[in-house]
């Protein structure tokens, strides 16, 4: 993981390269960033991106904290929080709206603090747009939270879900608000990842998403059951087939090595995610059984004629109810901190694979153009041999045309390769930092849980001593 201090971002982008198509629109924007390193604190380039306050945004607390601190060492001074999920409307046409609150000093935003209301499909729409615009140039687009038809329908069909703490035994209402909380947290992480990306963060669509007070045009193409959704599904299948059948002639060992590394990382993370979910599940079950034990002790207490012992047993029952809640909280810690982090990274790895695949497609284009060029050259040679000056001239023109295309495609390929390398390096650093932060946070939370357990048992001890 070479993290060499790099020059300000994108200074290597050749602004005179007019042959690039849509990238050019952003060339000036990109230049702006590099000319004003003070503005967004980017000095040593993106390699120093530190996600100190990311733990806060990955925080599990079910009443989401509004983060007040803005770390000064990050490359982008922006913090986004997603709060107050509210169900709007009733029945099948209802949806959940989230308040997206941004606090920033970035100059591209007109204010320092602002908030808007967005619904889930708006987030997906944003993700779609970013993908359309930047995947081709090799950017790793942070994945959007998954759609869940089951979860969403349940939400629509039940009466307004409580957005409060999951307290007490796991009921269906608890599971519901868990769903909402998971989604809220995932949306928040998504936005913050985009906000930290040097290129994506200054995208106008992103800006509009955060700033514009108006409702965004309903992104119907993102809905799973729409026509566009179906089309996307077909395309995905086609892509998958392509991924399997086309074997690229890899000239750059870096890519091959990275691809392998990414695969093994994915496998590891999947296993870890499984282990974590298993642990969370066992703890949840333990909470249920603790509840049963508490009830049994309460009955026992009722049947005991010896007053002090009866009192003590009733305290045992209370204690176990408290412990039941503690177990639930521990389970939630496992789940919300560690498990969700792993899911995010599996998603990001998915995006990385997408970007690798884009590169393959670009390579395909290049090869295709190369083949066409060769064919045209052959045509010209043939025409000259058979003494057909008109055909020869036509072929000569085509040759020029295809030579240009080949050159452009090659440059596109070089560019995407370069960008991907940069993106991956950036990602690797962030990955390590985030993993570190997540594990530290996880351990901290568990430490707090133990402190809580100590308090509960400490409170019980005098009750036990007071028997007789």
């Amino acid at each position, binding site marked *: 993981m070479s993290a060499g201090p790099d020059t300000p971002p994108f200074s290597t982008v050749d602004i005179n390269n007019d042959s690039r198509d849509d990238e050019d629109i952003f060339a000036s924007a990109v230049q702006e960033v590099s000319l004003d390193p003070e503005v967004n604190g980017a000095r040593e380039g993106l390699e120093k991106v530190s996600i100190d306050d990311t733990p806060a945004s990955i925080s599990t607390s079910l009443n989401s904290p509004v983060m007040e601190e803005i770390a000064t060492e990050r490359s982008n001074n922006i913090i986004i929080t997603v709060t107050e999920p509210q169900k709007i409307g009733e029945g099948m046409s209802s949806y959940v709206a989230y308040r997206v609150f941004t606090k920033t000093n970035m100059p591209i935003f007109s204010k320092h603090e602002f908030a808007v209301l967005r619904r889930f499909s708006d987030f997906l729409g944003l993700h779609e747009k970013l993908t359309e615009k930047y995947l081709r140039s090799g950017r790793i687009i942070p994945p959007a939270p998954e759609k869940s038809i089951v979860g969403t329908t349940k939400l629509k069909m039940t009466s307004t879900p409580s957005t409060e703490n999951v307290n007490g035994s796991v009921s269906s209402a608890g599971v519901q608000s868990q769903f909402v909380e998971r989604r809220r947290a995932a949306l928040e992480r998504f936005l913050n990842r985009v906000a930290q990306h040097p290129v994506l963060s200054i995208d106008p669509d992103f800006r509009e998403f955060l700033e514009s007070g108006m409702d965004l045009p309903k992104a119907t193409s993102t809905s799973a059951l729409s026509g566009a959704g179906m089309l996307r599904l077909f395309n995905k299948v086609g892509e998958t087939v392509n991924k399997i059948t086309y074997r690229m002639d890899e000239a750059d060992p870096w890519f091959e090595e990275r691809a392998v590394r990414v695969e093994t990382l994915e496998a*590891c993370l999947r296993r*870890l995610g499984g282990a974590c979910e298993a642990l969370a599940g066992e703890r949840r079950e333990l909470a249920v*059984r603790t509840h049963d034990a508490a009830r*049994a002790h309460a009955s026992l207490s009722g049947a005991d004629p010896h007053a002090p012992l009866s009192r*003590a047993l009733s305290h045992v029952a209370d204690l176990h109810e408290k412990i039941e809640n503690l177990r639930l909280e521990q389970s939630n810690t496992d789940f919300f901190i560690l498990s969700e982090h792993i899911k995010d990274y599996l998603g990001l790895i998915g995006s990385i694979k997408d970007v690798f695949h884009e590169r393959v497609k670009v390579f395909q284009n290049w090869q295709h153009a190369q083949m066409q060029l060769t064919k045209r050259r052959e045509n010209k040679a043939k025409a000259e041999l058979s003494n057909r000056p008109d055909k020869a001239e036509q072929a000569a023109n085509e040759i020029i045309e295809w030579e240009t295309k080949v050159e452009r495609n090659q440059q596109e390929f070089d560019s995407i390769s370069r960008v991907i390398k940069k993106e991956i390096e950036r990602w690797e650093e962030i990955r390590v930092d985030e993993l*570190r932060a997540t594990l530290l946070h996880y*351990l901290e939370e*568990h430490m707090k849980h133990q402190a809580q357990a100590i308090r509960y048992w400490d409170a019980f*001890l005098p009750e036990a001593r007071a028997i007789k």
Partner: protein
Amino acid sequence: MMDCVEDSSQDPLSTVPIADPAPATMETKVEKKKPNENVSLADNSLLVDISDALSEKEKVKFTVHTKTTLPEFQKSEFIVVRQHEEFVWLHDRYEENEEYAGYIIPPAPPRPDFDASREKLQRLGEGEGALTREEFLKMKEELEDEYLATFKKTVAMHEVFLQRLAAHPVFRRDSHLRVFLEYEQDLCAKPRGKMDLIGGLVRSMTTTTDEIYLGATVRDVNDFFEQETSFLQEYYSHLKEAVAKVDRMTSKHKEVADAHIKLSSCITQLATREQPPMERFLTKASETFDKCRKIEGRMASDQDLKLADTLRYYMRDAHAAKAVLVRRLRCLAAYEAANRNLEKARAKNKDVHAPLEVQEAEQGQAEACAKFEQLSARAREELIDFRTRRVAAFRKSLIELAELEIKHARSQQELFRKSLQVLRECQ
């Protein structure tokens, strides 16, 4: 060797030997389950303990070691080897002895049951392919620890049973106990064949029908006993429920502990693919989870030991107390029958002078009366004592439980704190 009469706070229970990975044939310096509060005389005239135990295939062989100053015994110190069935045989001899009808007979120890452990080990073996070598070894270690704990527990229960008998002023004089402790050959207690088991089942069934039948036909003259009966019935069923629930809770708690194995193994795997600083970090994190697992496991087994086992023991004791009440009712029925007999004899021999029949009936009635009174008095004492014992035992167990849980929670907290410190310094 342990004092069978001990009520001191210097209880070996405070050191939890469960953690020792000792081999199966081991020194039974095991925690004593219950202090014997029956006897206040701190005499050492009859000291019994189980100095060794061996588990082979389906059987467990206990080495019963006795040290005595009583003249009834041939030697002053001796050893015999006994199996579980022989303990049951001994218990049954006390149960069927009419002289002890008014006493709460210490419940027989439960049969050594390693089925659960064996099954888990088998399942582990079957699922071996799905685990890494490291995970497999750790799980195996956990199961072996569990097996050891179960083993120690069964030894302790057999020991407590004997010690309670040996400390009891009346029970210790029983000839069957002497035979049990001294006789070097195997006792005639054959392993319970099918007929025996069915016999046992029939016997326990008749006891219950006895309860119901007697309860219905014999009016109890004494409020105290009526109260006791209903109290014990209810209490027993609540205890049973509580035992079941706590058992389920502690077994799940063990599973939570085991789930950490996979977690730490996955983190270790992740570590091997990272650069040195991150690798160190992850390795350390993985170690933390491993240690955490051990502490959680200990929390679970202490809950089992202090809470579940206490409940379980008193459930069995309550059952034994109920048995006393049943025996008393039977005795009462016999007394009432003798009364009726006397009346009948008197009625029949109204005109006969000094009839033999009546005299016999009178004698019979007097005996029955005396027996009943004696039994009732003893039973009353025993039941009051049961209450006292129960309260004291629960108190002790709950205090110890709380102290142990606090200790474990503190060590977990400390573990996390230290780990966080080291981890933050990493890289």
